[in-house]
């Protein structure tokens, strides 16, 4: 059964058609790339999938539920995590607090329990402290736990954002230009991280990226869009030799 399916979704802003007739199906343990020129509508698609925008046409399914009208935080609880094109960390908070905030939905103690420091408070806080440190440990960031996240180097900030998205326990992870602003060395590390995440967390990944070495190197399937429409889909080799894609995006 597919994790995520869209049926002919489209998005219109006033008179502008940003995306039209976009259909996709992502199954378990897949790694799919979404590429296209700037302004093609890639991030708009991400925003529709994650509930930031409600599609003006078509339907989005997570599992078997239609999630068109769900809010972003509800969609997260259904197993869809994301990162942002321009990093959006909680800058003035420590690294570990960034992760702990993402565990919010797994906790249930009440305000009363919090204020009177009840048993449930201590138990749950201890649990997520351990879980958060474990997660940071997997990414070799346990020493940075108490650092302000804005003080981290750029590559680690990207990593922390992915880490935070993983803390929401997603089945499908959407990465919006994870390699933007990275040097070749950092991009290589990122590719290893992505491979590691798939292995360890058994998540499917849908990523937007302009770095062709990364996209062609790790994606199993690629979808190319231009002017809000799908112009090609297939394996990296098929995409590389597709005339339309070369004309619109890759260049000769």
């Amino acid at each position, binding site marked *: 059964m597919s994790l995520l399916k869209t049926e002919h979704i489209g998005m219109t802003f006033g008179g502008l058609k940003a995306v039209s007739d976009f259909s996709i199906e992502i199954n378990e343990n897949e790694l799919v790339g979404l590429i296209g020129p700037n302004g093609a509508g890639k991030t708009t698609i991400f925003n529709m999938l*994650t509930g*930031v925008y409600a599609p003006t046409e078509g339907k989005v399914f997570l599992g078997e539920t239609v999630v068109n009208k769900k*809010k*972003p*935080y509800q969609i*997260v*609880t259904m197993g869809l*995590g*994301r990162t*942002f094109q321009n990093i*959006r*960390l*909680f*800058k*003035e*908070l420590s690294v570990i*607090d960034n992760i*702990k*905030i*993402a565990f*919010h*939905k797994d*906790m249930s*103690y009440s*305000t009363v329990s*919090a*204020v*009177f*420091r009840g048993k449930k*408070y*201590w138990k*749950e*806080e201890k649990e997520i402290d351990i879980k958060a440190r474990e997660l940071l440990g997997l990414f070799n960031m346990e020493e940075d736990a108490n650092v302000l996240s804005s003080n981290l180097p750029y590559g680690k900030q990207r990593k922390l954002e992915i880490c*935070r*998205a993983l*803390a*929401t326990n997603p089945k499908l992870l959407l990465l919006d230009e994870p390699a933007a602003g990275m040097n070749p060395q950092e991009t290589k590390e990122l590719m290893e991280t992505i491979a590691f995440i798939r292995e360890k967390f058994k998540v499917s990944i849908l990523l937007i990226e302009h770095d062709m070495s990364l996209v062609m190197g790790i994606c199993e399937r690629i979808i190319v869009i231009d002017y809000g429409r799908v112009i090609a889909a297939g394996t990296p080799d098929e995409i590389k030799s597709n005339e339309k894609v070369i004309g619109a995006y890759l260049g000769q």
Partner: protein
Amino acid sequence: MDKKVISGYIKNITAIMVVYAIIFYLIQIKVINNYYNGILILAGIYIIVAASLNLATGYLGQLALGHAGFMAIGAYTAALFAIAVDLPKYVELVAGLILGGVVAGIFGLIIGIPALRLRGDYLGIVTLGFGEIIRIALLNLSFTGGAAGLKGIPRYVNFTEIYFLVVLVIAFLFAFIRSRHGRAILSIKEDEIAAESVGIPTTFYKVYGFVVSAFIAGVGGGALGFYQRILDPKKFNFMFSVEFFIIVVLGGMGSITGTILAALALAFINEFLYSIDELRLVIYALTLIILMIFKSDGLLGRKEFSLIKLLNRFSKKTKIENAD
């Protein structure tokens, strides 16, 4: 609960009791006379309301300029309740304060749900307007005593009552902020879109934080009524809201201990500047400008003063000295 936490509690409670005992003794032997006692009580009320505003502005990141309105609602509710019923002092006091807080909280909910869709300046304007509506309503209603003010409120608040009320409010805020709910509130200030994308119901927490803030402001207002014995609607004007805002900015947005410090300082400065009232706001503005130049995030920034940390540092030092 581990031992460290318990020993921390014991140290803090001891410190609270010692400070109380010292000030109480000074009041008894008249070193702190009635005049200064009064300023201390007002400072306590300032701390409560400014701390509540810090929750809405410093932690939740919403510009709220109508806290005098919530205070007024709390003050009039508590006072009218105490005048209407005939119960033992402390029952009336506690029930009155809670009732004042609850009614202020309900108003917070009513204006919070539509207003929190707005951001920044717009929210500021809406809350400002709300504060003015409350003031004008109180001026023109008959059961509140109108422009002549509400008289005959029993004096239930003295130094002891206000001291422990402040302790209660501050303890509540600390515990609240350092929980999953507090983290959710902090994340909204940092980045609302990111917060939503990791599963925080941001609308809920914005309204929730705002209502809690209004509740505490209402309690503070109730305490003001029980101390002054007379309520004048003209007091709860826009400038009164701004004064709390100044305290929060001075102390540091997102620092409760900073708020305590700034509230104490401002309460005393206020009294000394009473004779030159027209210059008061000029001096406030100057203070703010100077602070913005030299320490733009307020006295304590986002840091908190911690007795435990201070003691730990102290004991470490002495240990090293002993070892030498």
